[in-house]
């Protein structure tokens, strides 16, 4: 079922972006490397560690 929905979504939004819902995207980050986030082990990861690297960011799901 999920794959079917995904195919429909891809057909509808081939460019990859959907219409926004007035989300407030205000932030003060001038670089990805200024951000930090908690990993699955609960540790805060400073994205400075990705300086000089090409990073692929994916919102994932198993189903």
């Amino acid at each position, binding site marked *: 079922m999920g794959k079917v929905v995904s195919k429909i979504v891809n057909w509808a939004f081939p460019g*990859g972006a959907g219409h926004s819902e007035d989300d407030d995207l205000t932030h003060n980050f001038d670089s990805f490397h200024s951000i930090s986030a908690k990993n699955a082990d609960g540790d805060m990861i400073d994205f400075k560690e990705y300086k*000089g690297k*090409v990073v692929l960011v994916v*919102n994932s799901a198993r189903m």
Partner: protein
Amino acid sequence: MYNKYKDQGFEILYFPCKQFGKSTDEHGNRVDGQEPGDIATVQAAYREKFHIPWSIFDFVNVNGPETCDVYKFLRSAELKNQNREKNAVEWNFGKFIVGKDGQVLKRYGPGVPITVFDAEDKLKAWLAME
């Protein structure tokens, strides 16, 4: 592909997300999102079942009022296929490429397999950029 390029400076970051679709939890209950279970369960499944070696982060919201900082940054980048009016993540497995300088280079939809990036004009070119 990850193994092929990781030593050249390629990283993949997975951000599990429960915002899209529905699924069934371990008790057989229908739940929101296609990433059921707690983050420990999710990480264990990625490692043990899918043998994913790259970094896995905590659950995030990629759309809506609780959009996390990472996706605020990614979605606010001005790109060929993303702008102020059109930037919501439409489904699981949306893909953003961040360059060595920390700026968003590209955005790809869920239907684009990452194997597409193994090309002269994509990953090889991005890795060659300073």
